[in-house]
């Protein structure tokens, strides 16, 4: 990736991602958080475009920006109380958490600094979806099925959890 456009795009998108992420963490309003989160997701999706993962980028937009944000919105709307605005934003482990974060950054930064990558010169094939589809249904079929089952279980689990149990409900014999 040496084209000036790609380099420029990378830095632009990186800035957008990090700015949006910081706004997510720092926003006081939960709805603002969700909206920044959506911005962040979309920026990440454009990063995927930059990385020639067009299918993944669209999946990112559809699943994260389209579905996860919406679920978050529902969560926020279902649990919002008027007194939320007054309470403190952060808990009392701010300092320790800062330390952890700094160490994480230092560690990864240090490791990356010393790393040498084996960069392949090959390009990503044009029809990514055909390759991914084929792989998903052949080599990765079992994880694929497991993921499907996971989603189903999550779906049912979420319904069961979120649905209030009737206090006087008759249990089936």
């Amino acid at each position, binding site marked *: 990736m040496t084209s000036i456009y790609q380099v420029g795009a990378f830095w632009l998108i990186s800035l957008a991602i990090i700015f949006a992420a910081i706004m997510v963490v720092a926003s006081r309003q939960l709805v603002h958080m969700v909206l920044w989160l959506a911005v962040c997701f979309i920026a990440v999706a454009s990063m995927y475009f930059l990385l020639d993962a067009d299918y993944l980028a669209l999946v990112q937009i559809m699943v994260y920006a389209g579905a996860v944000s919406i679920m978050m919105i529902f969560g926020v709307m*279902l649990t919002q*109380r008027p007194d939320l605005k007054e309470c403190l934003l952060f808990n009392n482990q701010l300092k320790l958490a800062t330390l952890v974060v700094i160490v994480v950054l230092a560690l990864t930064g240090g490791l990356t600094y010393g790393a040498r990558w084996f960069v392949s010169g090959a390009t990503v094939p044009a029809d990514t979806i055909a390759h991914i589809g084929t792989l998903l249904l052949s080599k990765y079929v079992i994880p694929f099925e497991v993921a499907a089952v996971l989603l189903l279980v999550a779906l049912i689990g979420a319904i069961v959890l*979120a*649905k*209030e149990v*009737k*206090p006087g*409900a008759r249990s089936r014999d």
Partner: protein
Amino acid sequence: MITGTDLRDRLEHDIKTDRYVLNMGPQHPATHGVFRVVLTLDGEVIVNAEAVCGYLHRGIEKLAEARTYTQVIPYTDRMDYLAAMLNNLGYVQTLEKMMGVEVPERAEYIRVICAELTRIASHLISVGTYSIEIGGITGFFYCLRDREKILDLIEMISGSRMTVSYMRVGGVSEDLPAEFLPQVKKLMKELPAAFDEYDGLITGNEIFQARTKFVGVLNPETAINYSASGPMLRASGVNWDLRKARPYSVYDRFDFEVPLGRNGDCFDRFRMRILEMRQSVRIIEQALEGLPEGPFMGKAPKVIKPPVGEMYHEIEGARGILGYYLVSDGSPKPYRMHVRRPSFINLGLLSELCRGWKLADVVAILGSVDIVLGEVDC
């Protein structure tokens, strides 16, 4: 079949969220005027609905005490402004009953024709606005188109389209104009086809039915206990139409049926009106057939001074039982006038009907009650 009670049970157990209060009105597209419903909502489910009226209160009962009996007639127009003829009729009949005035045959027939025309016009508005409230705008225009024809006729008789002030004690203010009869006959031929069109566009529509069937169910016991009247009462299956039950004027001479509903839901209340319009057409056709010649005004004194006493008289208005209660102290002005306004009393049921239904159903239920704010607030 889901009833409100089921929904009420259900709402106790579904996802519990914070309840919140929603003011529907006084400025709202579906409240038919300045009228407010304070809704307590759980999600979109109504926990409580409190009707707040009085935004249009003009004190007509008080005004009447300062007017002569004749001068009150124009004010009655302005209560249920969609069915002014019926309001006039109720008022003058009460006075006639009080004073024992004889009304000539022709006048009675003219009154019946006017009253039924007004009933159709009023029901057309009800049907049309109901269509709008359920979301289908087109039906409203068809209803208005046909109502215009009726209003043209009424204008021809009385000079006004809505606030007619046409009836007088002892008869009507003017005889029917010559060009009226052929036109009304033509219209009576056309109307059934128009009703069929509404049935096709509105009544028969599955979405409409899904929105209204088994929604806001009113059982006959509740309806009677809450003093509901008119199409609302009959939709619940209670056969009480004053034109049949206690015929006034010359209604006993006509052959017509009282349509009755089965479920007492919004759909029935809506359908009641279309069916009643069809019956009204029948009545008008018979009245035109039998319209006698003769004077249009009976022997009534110039200055109306009813004897001391009180009188309560009811007629079947477009929205239900329209009653006038007059107290006379022998002077030319009424000592006390009270009007039993069907919209007002029917509206008292709103809170009961709405509870447990969805926000969108409030509109459906309110529309099916069919109120006129001028009448509610009087």
